[in-house]
């Protein structure tokens, strides 16, 4: 009765996400086995996991004795035993990792077949920045754990063949040849199932072929530095490129050249000129080997200078290239018509910011106009950009580009940028690490509307921290504060110990005078203690007599009832 006397069942675990067709694959394998003279058993745990959660289907196959169905019936298990699984099929890369984590994949026997594509978990998706797990880690773990490791992008193949991942997995399963069945038997199974047979067979064939030589594991290499210097037609731009080329080395150089390109696309060559001058102004005060700071600066200055105002959005939305991109993204064929409807919500404030600075500020300051305007722009609008009306509307907004420099938004952003650069220059020479962190603070400014306002507020608070306490704030402290989830008030208790170290009790003694706006400040952290804090951004435009700072307006002024202060 030793276990080697009898053949072992073939044990197959399928890890998938609910509603992904893992059940279909299990049924195929059962049908395949039964038609090839095997006992076949499968089971699963549906229930809520079916609603997009991770779930396991388990299959066991056992060859019937020559006599046929007669003779003893094997007792097959209803769940996998860790360390005792022959084949694991994973419909996605993290699920493959899950199989390894559950001990289903062992080096002595398990063939692990997985799709290399990622379906990101909610934690990865909802992170503020880049919360994605390193796919190479997952691949490496799987490769280490498995006896045989077959991995390629099955989602892409399935999409190309208009089929499902299950079909590609089934093909790969046939391809690796660990089951005692012929390709013909596999294909016959698909035909018996009789649903979308042709597309399934195509996907099956793709999977079969790819399983023979799937790609190797190679960590993504950074893009190679541009070998030759680009030569724009426009003289100003050519001059900019030359200056960048002399000033910087890769990768900062490539980023800066991309920046020049962006400025020209965003505004005009003169704007690119301004960009390069700003780079230069920092570069010259930097000590030796400034590449790290310059690379970050080239990136973030370009992003900041190409801030998304209504004009920019209208411009990008109405481009022909964009129409083409949408067409391919949604997979519309040429015989099909395509209508593109934009979901836009221009707010009164954004409209004002598009206007000449004086007018915009006056409108926002006047309660009557403000109330009227906010009512007018309280609702979102759906604009069909490839209908005449909608297109012309946005086209005309984008036509305001030449006058952008007069707009309130331009003035506000430039004051902020200059103040930011000033701070960078101030510390570039003595504390390059701190300067780098100051540069990276721009990363906080993101999105639109409230998100953008919150980001700005956080950014302004950090810069104010540096402005007030200078190099007493270390680069590490600034980074840690930058990484905290906004709003800043949340980060404050966390920052408190350091602020104390900086001789600044939260809500403590010394209030001081803001360099730009001559307004008396409560110390940072006071807000956390309930006492009113009044924090101005570097380059605050208020005359110092205002009673509240509105980050999203970038100005100080009397509080409007419906004006969030953060």
């Amino acid at each position, binding site marked *: 009765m030793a276990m080697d006397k009898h053949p072992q069942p073939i044990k197959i675990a399928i890890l998938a996400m609910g509603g992904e067709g893992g059940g279909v694959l299990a049924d195929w394998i059962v049908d395949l086995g039964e038609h090839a003279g095997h006992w076949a058993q499968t089971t699963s745990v549906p229930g809520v996991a079916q609603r*997009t959660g991770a779930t396991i289907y388990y299959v066991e196959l056992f060859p019937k004795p020559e006599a046929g169905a007669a003779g003893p019936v094997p007792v097959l298990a209803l*769940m996998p035993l860790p360390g005792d699984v022959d084949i694991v099929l994973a419909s996605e890369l993290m699920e493959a990792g899950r199989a390894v984590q559950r001990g289903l994949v062992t080096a002595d026997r398990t063939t692990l077949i997985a799709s290399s594509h990622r379906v990101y978990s909610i934690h990865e998706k909802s992170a503020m920045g880049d919360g994605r797990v390193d796919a190479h880690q997952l691949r490496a773990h799987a490769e280490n754990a498995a006896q045989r490791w077959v991995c390629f992008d099955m989602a892409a193949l399935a999409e190309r063949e208009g089929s499902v991942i299950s079909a590609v997995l089934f093909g790969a399963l046939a391809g690796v040849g660990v089951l005692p069945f012929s390709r013909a038997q596999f294909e016959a199974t698909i035909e018996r199932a009789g649903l979308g047979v042709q597309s399934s067979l195509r996907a099956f064939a793709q999977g079969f072929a790819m399983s023979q030589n799937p790609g190797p594991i190679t960590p993504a290499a950074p893009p190679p530095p541009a070998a030759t210097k680009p030569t724009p037609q426009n003289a100003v731009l050519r001059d900019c490129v030359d200056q960048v080329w002399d000033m910087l080395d890769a990768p900062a150089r490539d980023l800066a050249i991309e920046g020049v390109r962006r400025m020209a696309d965003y505004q005009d060559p003169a704007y690119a000129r301004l960009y390069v001058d700003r780079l230069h102004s920092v570069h010259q005060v930097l000590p030796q080997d400034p590449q790290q700071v310059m690379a970050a600066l080239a990136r973030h200055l370009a992003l900041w200078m190409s801030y998304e105002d209504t004009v920019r959005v209208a411009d990008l939305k109405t481009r022909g290239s964009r129409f083409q991109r949408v067409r391919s993204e949604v997979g519309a064929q040429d015989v099909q018509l395509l209508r593109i409807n934009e979901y836009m919500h221009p707010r009164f404030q954004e409209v004002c910011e598009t206007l000449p600075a004086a007018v915009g500020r006056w409108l926002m300051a006047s309660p009557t106009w403000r109330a009227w305007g906010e009512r007018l722009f309280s609702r979102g609008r759906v604009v069909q950009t490839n209908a005449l009306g909608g297109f012309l509307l946005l086209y005309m907004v984008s036509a305001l580009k030449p006058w952008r420099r007069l707009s309130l938004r331009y003035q506000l952003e430039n004051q902020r940028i200059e103040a930011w650069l000033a701070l960078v220059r101030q510390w570039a020479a003595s504390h390059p690490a701190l300067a780098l962190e100051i540069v990276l603070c721009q990363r906080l400014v993101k999105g639109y509307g409230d998100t953008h306002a919150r980001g700005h507020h956080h950014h302004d608070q950090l810069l104010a921290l540096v402005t007030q306490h200078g190099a007493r704030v270390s680069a590490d402290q600034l980074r840690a504060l930058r990484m905290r989830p906004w709003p800043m008030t949340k980060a404050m208790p966390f920052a408190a110990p350091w602020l104390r170290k900086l001789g600044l009790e939260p809500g403590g003694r010394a209030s001081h005078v803001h360099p730009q706006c001559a307004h008396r400040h409560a110390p940072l952290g006071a807000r956390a203690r309930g006492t009113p804090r009044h924090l101005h951004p570097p380059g605050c435009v208020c005359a110092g007599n205002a009673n509240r700072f509105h980050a999203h307006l970038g100005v100080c002024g009397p509080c409007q009832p419906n004006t969030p202060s953060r």
Partner: protein
Amino acid sequence: MAERSFVQEVQKLRLGAGEEFVGEGILAVTKALLESGVSYVAGYQGAPISHLMDVLADAQDILQEHGIRFENSASEATAAATLAASVNYPLRGAVTFKATVGTNVASDALANLASGGVTGGALIVVGEDYGEGSSIMQERSHAFAMKSQIWLLDPRPNLPSMVKAVKMGFELSEASHTPVMLQLRIRACHVHGRFTASDNVRAPYALHEAMEQPRRDVSRIVLPPASFVHEQEKLTQRWPAAVAFIQKHQLNEFFDGDANDVGILVQGGNYNALVRVLERLGLADVYGRSRVPIYVMNVAYPVVDAEVLRFCQGKRAVLLVEEGQPNFVEQNVATVLRQAGCTTALHGKDLLPPAGEYTLHEVLKGVRAFAQRYDLLPATATAAVAPTAPPIPKTHKVFALKPLPEVVQPRPPGFCTGCPERPIFAAMKLVEKELGTHHVSADIGCHLFSILPPFHIGNTTMGYGLGTAGASAMNVPAGKKAISIMGDGGFWHNGLTSGIANAVFNRSDNLTIVVDNSYTSATGGQDVLSSKALNPARSTGHLIEKAVRGVGVQWVRTFKRTYDVAGLRDALKEALTSQQPGPKVLVAQSECMLNRQRREKPQVRAQLAAGQRVVRERFGVDSDTCTGDHSCIRISGCPSLSIQTNPDPLRTDPVATVLDSCVGCGMCGEVSHAAVLCPSFYKAQIVSHPSAWERWWDGLRSRLVGALQRRRAQRLAQWAF
């Protein structure tokens, strides 16, 4: 209209004697019911027995042929009470529901049924949603069987055994005038297997006869003095009758082995796990021929003392494999052995885990410990056993490896793509921003996913339909109102009375949001009273708003399109700030997307094939205006709203993207409007087979637009490099 159609499976119910049934366990049970000559079947859907309900719903014609009445009960209590038909009449009846939640709801009726006893066979098929993938509290049905004295069958998880259990269950019930509970674990319900069918049997005695010639026997009614007699009768007559029947028909199984100084007692449901483990330890073969004698308790309750003693006779020790806690059987067996002065050592939860699912891994550890203690295993054999812990990762040749838990993230279930319930919670998030957080009493159903990321909404869940009841105490003057969630399933199950009527009667001011998606979606999309689908066998289309007004609620709003996030937000704000006394009820209505897609996809395919004009809608994100802050995802969590590497060389954070699985529900756009997120979302309308006029107009339009676009592109081109 259920999530899954069983048109094929239904044909299997017609199989005759000698033919082979191949399919899912729960369908085999359904076939067994027909072969047992049942007169009526009732139940309430829920994993893992939803398929039993669905297949019967699709089998109306077969049921009529055999004169079987099938009821979609309003609740498990209703289902259990249905068995009253078997009290006075020789009618075989079966009811089914999910355990233990269903058993909880049904327990009142079950207790009354068990007290009076039955004439016709009464079978309660409970699907155990226990262990991996379970969505309910982890408890045992065993306690209900014991407290009401209902015999509990727990057959081996293969189709022949399960089918036999059904047939024997009816006979046992009739032989002992006691209802019988058939317990099926979730994996057994869904196991694919085969058994040899017999002919379906038509009940000799029909329901209409009972209605036309009613009988009554006051001694079967639960009222003193009868109720006191019942208690005695249970022990003096029904129990011995049951034990005699179980022994006579050998419902429990004895498997001999050469190592007969030890033995293992196992619940039928855990038999396969035990055999696999013994096989791994080299103590059995694949066919279950074990060196260790095994006593399989296919009848989990009552324990047959004589059989236990017979099995333990002359054994040094036995191991009892009993899943779940408390260890009722272990206590019972211990008493049996002790009182008989039997010296056999009893092991159970001292070697096996005291609580939790008995996975192969856990059973292996327990049985191995037992085998080692009684020298069944040479030291080498244990080494031969496959490793049971994840392999320790070697450092990779290319780079250092992080520990797996850091890279493998949990993937909890969530709302499906285009789910109409998602925008409800998105709206609640927006209200939260303005009015602050509220106490939210959640309910059972898909909507409970709101407690998970990204919404994190919901404080407690007290049971199906008890969302509003769960907020009853929150009924004092306060700065904020409490919010309750309730699904349409829970609403009709009991929420209308236990929640809404209760709130009216107790003058509550709180808000209840009734999520009305036209089905009990979490259980597989079965119809309820308020379903819109025309169901030939059931009466649908009864509005929730009418019912709510009927019990006296003044403030009711029915919201016909949940995807209108801004509208929902305002309605919620109004309800939460309203000064009007009395409960507020907001009926948020939109069809379950899963079912809707299942209904519409074939239609669309047909239309396309026929060359008719079809407009497909889906959403997209402009990667060049998306700044990668992912606020849209944090307020949606839709599976088809994902992220991708930023195509912009200057940006590093991934941008949002909409996958092709998008069904164009419109939530993305509405949210970006309501929350003033960003202008990156667009809705693409793809028109297949457009009319000639449409094509002409579109052509003209795109020529004009194209001209303007080219003009600007040329200007930019002179600066491009």
